[in-house]
């Protein structure tokens, strides 16, 4: 156990070497493309990675899962026992949920009517609320509340509500109390509750002292993926408070109402949950780059690199959750999770559109005990180009602000600003550019650079539901490929509306969506053609020469 912990810790340390310490040899020999060792696949950086090296998805969860969940030595013997207990609990749980929603329909109607009346009477009151919390809270006794695809709850160990995706926390305090009871009940026996599967729902628990996170989902995601999303939400909360502060608060006062400190952050968490259902970055554990000519990207990166200050650790230029350039301090690596949290923070608030924001932010994967200070601003009010400068010194606002000014001046002086804006006009390429008729969409991730590329989701996936369904299919393939007990390297999936192929090697991951009329043989030739195309276009699609300070 002790040795295990040590090993996990060790893997977490950002290391510059791209070669994973173990497992690689075996995987490489199994790989169908022995020529593509890690670091040489399309999209691999020439001068090293920008991110903490994450071999795969398991890296992001594995370490976390193991160091917290207490492992009982009697686990195997107790398994049967546990199962029956679990069944009991899930029965209790479903009974409870019917209790909570067991209000006659006409009564519901009446309540709704009353509420509407109330709204009409006090437009000002509702307007004021909207300034504070964004939108009206949903009634938790309604059928519509129950019908949501995915609920997320965060509670403290004292069972106090911290966050609920739908409905007000107050109205859910008894439900959250039950959740905490379930967790404690199993912990009393030195076990840990991971999930309950019942009636098409998965109830997934993630315990991160002093918080408990619970998801109730009827999506196709695996338990592991839902747990990963909950972890993201946990990191989101840590990024606002730091792990140190979070712990200190609950040490001082066990029944503290954390909502006080998190006030106003609900929209950030809501946005994160929505984004995870739409943006494959989270599933891939990687970042997507804005496609642009390599020469222009390099020029932008060097302008960004030259506008440096002593306290700057990371400088990130992004456009709508796509990376344009990233400069980091030598020997300091950003973790993809931290980058995603930054993307989410920026996309969740319009308040960065005006002026220059200066805010403390904790990058939990980098250092969960302290704050960085982020200077966040858009280059121009009407573009989507957002610059994030991460400094260690909270008094350094004016120095950092000056870096932004210098960066902009340099961009204009070198004449790349116009070309940069040009690239913003085509933030996505189309799958048809690859020239494979049956190809609809794909996701390709280079493991060593932590970057992925993907065309625009196009016809026939036009509606939001269809887009989310496609991502759901990728999630399904991803979970099969990364199943911890039986990982798969190649998957060919035939469905009624499309055929999908997944190919996971030690160097890259590829998920491809074809029209349902294609065959496996055509898919295989198509994949080879696609790989060649990605290789040909790699300098546009990826950041091949990242800069450091």
């Amino acid at each position, binding site marked *: 156990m002790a040795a295990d912990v040590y090993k996990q*810790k060790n893997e*977490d*340390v*950002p290391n510059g070497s791209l070669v994973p310490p173990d497992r690689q040899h075996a995987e490489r020999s199994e790989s169908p493309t022995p020529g593509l060792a890690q670091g040489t696949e399309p999209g691999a950086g020439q001068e090293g990675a920008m991110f903490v090296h994450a071999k795969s998805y398991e890296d992001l969860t594995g370490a976390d899962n193991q160091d917290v969940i207490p492992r009982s030595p009697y686990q195997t013997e107790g398994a049967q026992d546990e199962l029956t207990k679990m069944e009991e609990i899930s029965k209790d749980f479903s009974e409870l949920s019917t209790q909570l929603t067991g209000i006659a329909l006409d009564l519901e109607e009446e309540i709704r009517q009353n509420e509407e009346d109330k709204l009409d009477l006090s437009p*000002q*009151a509702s*307007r*004021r609320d*909207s*300034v*504070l919390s964004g939108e009206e809270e949903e009634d938790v006794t309604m059928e519509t509340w129950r019908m949501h695809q995915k609920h997320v709850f965060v509670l403290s160990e004292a069972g106090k509500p911290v966050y609920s995706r739908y409905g007000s926390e107050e109205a859910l305090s008894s439900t959250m109390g039950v959740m905490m009871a379930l967790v404690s009940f199993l912990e009393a026996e030195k076990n840990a509750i991971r999930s309950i599967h019942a009636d098409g729902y998965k109830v997934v628990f993630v315990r991160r002292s002093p918080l408990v996170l619970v998801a109730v989902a009827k999506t196709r995601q695996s338990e592991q993926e839902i747990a990963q999303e909950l972890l993201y939400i946990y990191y989101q909360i840590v990024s*606002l*408070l730091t792990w140190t502060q979070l712990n200190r608060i609950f040490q001082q006062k066990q029944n503290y109402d954390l909502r*006080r*400190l*998190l*006030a*106003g952050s609900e*929209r950030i968490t809501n946005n994160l949950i929505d984004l995870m259902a739409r943006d494959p970055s989270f599933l891939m554990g990687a970042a997507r780059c804005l496609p642009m000519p390599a020469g222009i990207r390099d020029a932008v990166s060097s302008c960004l690199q030259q506008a440096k200050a002593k306290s700057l*650790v990371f400088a990130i230029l992004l456009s709508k959750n796509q990376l344009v350039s990233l400069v980091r*301090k030598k020997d*300091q690596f950003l973790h993809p999770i931290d980058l995603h949290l930054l993307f989410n*923070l920026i996309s*969740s*608030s*319009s*308040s*960065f559109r*005006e*002026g*220059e*924001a*200066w*805010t*403390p932010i904790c990058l939990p994967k980098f*250092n969960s*005990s*302290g*704050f960085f200070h*982020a200077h966040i601003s858009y280059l121009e009010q009407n573009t989507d180009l957002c610059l994030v400068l991460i400094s*260690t*010194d*909270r*008094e350094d*606002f*004016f120095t950092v*602000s000056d870096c932004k000014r210098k960066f902009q001046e340099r961009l204009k002086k070198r004449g790349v600003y116009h070309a940069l804006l040009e690239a913003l006009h085509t933030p996505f390429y189309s799958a048809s550019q690859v020239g494979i008729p049956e190809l609809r969409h794909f996701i390709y991730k280079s493991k060593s650079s932590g970057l992925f590329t993907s065309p625009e989701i196009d016809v026939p996936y036009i509606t939001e539901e269809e887009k989310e369904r496609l991502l759901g299919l990728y999630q399904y393939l991803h979970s099969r490929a990364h199943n911890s007990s039986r990982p798969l390297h190649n998957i060919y999936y035939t469905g009624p509306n499309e055929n999908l192929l997944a190919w996971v090697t030690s160097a890259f991951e590829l998920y491809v969506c074809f029209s349902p009329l294609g065959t496996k043989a055509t898919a295989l030739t198509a994949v080879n053609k696609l790989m060649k195309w990605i290789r040909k276009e790699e300098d546009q699609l990826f950041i091949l020469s990242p800069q450091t300070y």
Partner: protein
Amino acid sequence: MALRELKVCLLGDTGVGKSSIVWRFVEDSFDPNINPTIGASFMTKTVQYQNELHKFLIWDTAGQERFRALAPMYYRGSAAAIIVYDITKEETFSTLKNWVKELRQHGPPNIVVAIAGNKCDLNDVREVMEKDAKDYADSIHAVFVETSAKNAININELFIEISRRIPSTDTNPPSSGKGFKLRRQPSVTKRSCC
């Protein structure tokens, strides 16, 4: 024409309209669905006052509890502080009194305090009487004005009044633009791995 830099910070409870006041002043715009400020936001605007140009360096702070500890960083070194409350919410006026106390204890000695009762367009749901607020402001020698960022009422007047109250150049030498010394806190964590 002489240029003077005036550092101003906005304080007050969350949702009272600090950012809206700043946006109205700087951009002359109003967004009813404005998102809460994260951390603090910095903006500048230059206006003419008598025979001088006054460049306002404005720190619009977030009103939320978790950012509260950062406030001293912004009001230290400020020439003026605008404390905003919402006339339709009594409790935001109590928060304002706490801010006044904090400024008296920890703020710079000569800081000009301005009190802005925002959302005066919502007169029919008013909870704080204008007279009560005015009396309170007089008792602490603060500027007082009721504003509406939405309807652009008294926003420019608020800043003009600040210009008027701030002592003339002789007592307040122009700073280099780099000024605004933010307080150093020893506990700021420097880079480290894990």
